[in-house]
């Protein structure tokens, strides 16, 4: 038992040494990798508990990090950037601020960037400001007793009379019918080809309705990373079995400029 305790201390020492070299940035060649590996190999038959084995794995991991550091060290030393750190420290201690900043100026190429508010964005901001109710009135509406903060669902929009259930259902079914008939003719349809309409508003509405069609499991989206295209494909599994699988959300950014570009591409 005491032997095992001593062995465990040896193992901990290897782990700690690797960690110190990694964190302190000292010369990784201070670690004798070969001797450490021989030691670990010799100690391995002593380990019985899971914690001991895990510590052994950690030591191996630490040694592999040291080997990587040694490789980086050699690469750096052989590169044109290598200068003895002690010599650099000495130079920095000897130079005054003016000389240092002069040297820096000759090696400095600052990034050039423009921060500007465009007239269109400014107009949107003014419109927003004009429509914004005073805080006292907004608080009255937003924080009435019992109200909770959260995103608006379709039900909320129906309650607010922005949308009617009949209308929404009808539009979704119509679009689903269109999608189904197109998917019968083709295996897959380009997402943008399908949602694109003559006006931006109509395109936006189609994109919104398609998101519900996809969420309901009537179809799904696939991405072609090589062509950077997104396709709508029919869902071949039942809704129940597909629901058991892990689903992911796919955000699709879309604005007026994008819509215009699609229109131009389509001629």
């Amino acid at each position, binding site marked *: 038992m005491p032997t095992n305790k001593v062995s465990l201390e040896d193992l901990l020492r290897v782990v700690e040494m690797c960690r110190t070299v990694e964190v302190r940035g000292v010369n990784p060649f201070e670690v004798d990798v070969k001797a450490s590996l021989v030691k670990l190999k010799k100690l391995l038959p002593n380990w019985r508990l899971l914690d001991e084995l895990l510590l052994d794995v950690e030591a191996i991991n630490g040694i592999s990090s040291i080997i990587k550091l040694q490789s980086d060290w050699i690469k750096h030393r052989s590169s044109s950037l290598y200068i003895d750190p002690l010599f650099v420290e000495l130079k920095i201690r000897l130079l005054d601020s003016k000389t240092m900043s002069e040297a820096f100026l000759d090696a400095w190429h600052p990034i050039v960037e423009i921060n*500007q508010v465009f007239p269109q964005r400014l107009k949107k901001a003014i419109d927003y400001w004009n429509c914004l109710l005073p805080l006292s009135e907004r608080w009255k509406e937003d924080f009435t007793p019992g109200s909770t903060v959260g995103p608006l669902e379709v039900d909320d929009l129906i309650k607010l009379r922005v949308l009617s259930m009949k209308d929404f259902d009808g539009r979704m079914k119509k679009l689903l019918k269109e999608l189904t008939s197109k998917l019968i003719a083709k295996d897959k349809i380009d997402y943008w080809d399908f949602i694109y309409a003559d006006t931006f508003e109509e395109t936006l509405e189609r994109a919104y309705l398609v998101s519900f069609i996809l969420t309901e499991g009537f179809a799904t989206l696939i991405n072609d990373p090589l062509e950077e295209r997104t396709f709508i494909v029919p869902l071949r599994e039942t809704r129940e079995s597909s629901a058991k699988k892990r689903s992911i959300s796919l955000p699709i950014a879309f604005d007026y400029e994008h819509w215009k570009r699609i229109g131009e591409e389509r001629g």
Partner: protein
Amino acid sequence: MEEDWGGERLSEREVEIDRRLKRASQLLFFQRHRRPGIRGWELKKILGKDFMDIIGLLNSELDRLNLQVKVVFEEGNIRDKPSEEQLDRARFFVTIKNPLTASDLMASGWRIDDLAALAASIALITSRQGRAPRSDIEQILREKFPKWRVDINLDRFIRIGYLSKDEHDMLYIGWRSRAEIDQKTLMELLLAK
């Protein structure tokens, strides 16, 4: 007839290149995200697969204005021709081409002391393989600057991206330094002084 038709096509091509050049300059100059610059894959998506040709053209136009397109690769300096994947992951910036003058420095709003502290930090980190404990840098800087100034400066360098740090308080060369500072020149100049 054919020549006319050919001439018209060439002009259309020129118009197209001009449009893409303008788009490229907009993408590179106007800050779109929190960090300046734009990734290669974004440029490819917007300008097309031959985006590097457009960047090359833009670079020659910018040269007249003492500006350049700087490509910073995730892998650090690349000696050979970069691969498509490396270009996709790289970040593209517009930087000033020739070094600034002392009067430019006055206008930039940087104090000489702060620039000297930045130069010292970068030189020390570079000499130690691109990483050094913050305490070591602080110790050297405190020989010339008061503690409060060293703390403020190091925090500021980290915030604006000249340096980065990890959970062990180890300092590294930051993304902005890799875009703006010619480390080799800096080291050579410091040692030559």
